[in-house]
């Protein structure tokens, strides 16, 4: 009976431990995608600023509440704008940003092709 009790306690404890670990892992994944608006070139995962610390706590709290990554990033974008995302979303405001490298590459290829043809 005693052994069974210990087994149950250990099972429950390890379950909580793994749940916390998974939550931490998920929170860190999100933290790495969020820009620190104080330091700007760092993610909140790297930054030591007061706001970055608050945002890390907030993200973990939101995950505990059962919010998913999209809901959390939407909440932050609503407050800080798209700038808070280190990787901008693909939308009407960022079409040029995302497509410019492809356009420039194609333009370059045509240019090179033209030069080779002439020669």
């Amino acid at each position, binding site marked *: 009976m005693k052994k069974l009790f210990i087994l149950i306690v250990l099972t429950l404890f390890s379950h909580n431990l793994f749940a916390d670990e998974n939550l931490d892992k998920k929170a860190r994944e999100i933290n790495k995608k969020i820009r620190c*608006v104080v330091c700007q070139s760092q993610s909140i995962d790297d930054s030591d600023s007061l*706001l970055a610390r*608050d945002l890390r706590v907030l993200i973990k709290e939101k995950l505990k509440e059962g919010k998913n990554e999209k809901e959390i990033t939407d909440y932050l974008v609503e*407050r800080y*704008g798209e700038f808070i995302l280190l990787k901008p979303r693909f939308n009407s405001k960022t079409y040029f940003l995302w497509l410019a490298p492809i356009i420039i590459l194609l333009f370059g290829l045509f240019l090179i092709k033209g030069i080779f043809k002439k020669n």
Partner: protein
Amino acid sequence: MKYIGLIITTIFIFVCFFFGLNKKDQTLKSAFLNKPIPEINLNSLTNDKLDQSDFKNEILLVNFFASWCLPCIVEHDFLFELKKQKPIKIYGINYKDDIKNLKKWLEKLGNPYSKIGMDKTGITGINWGVNGIPESFLIDKNGIIRHKINGVIDEKQIKILLKKIESLEK
């Protein structure tokens, strides 16, 4: 005609850099500009509430500050100056501060605020999209954010604020 592609590319890059680097206002705009004020529900310093119901029928300024913030000391005199030139309500949001230090600070420097909300956790700051203090928001009679000031309110900012307030009063 031989170098037309190269010339177009050079001009394009030059134009991008020229306009990008010459942008006068490099500060972050508030995502709430011209939108209603975000959620606010704080205990005030005088043990009542500072919430949405306090933002009705008048133009007011919301100022995020703390006693540990050095630029806030510089700003403090300018808040009195603003009130002298235009007697509007200023709500202070005390950001992650110690209440004893805040009380001492207000005793020493004076209190320009009509009400002070206590944001102990910083959540209200995040809800309002604050990225550093001091930071201030000008709110119109309908509770819409019309202007945001990142950093200290100084003489130059007072002039801008007075113009904005004047246009909101029309």
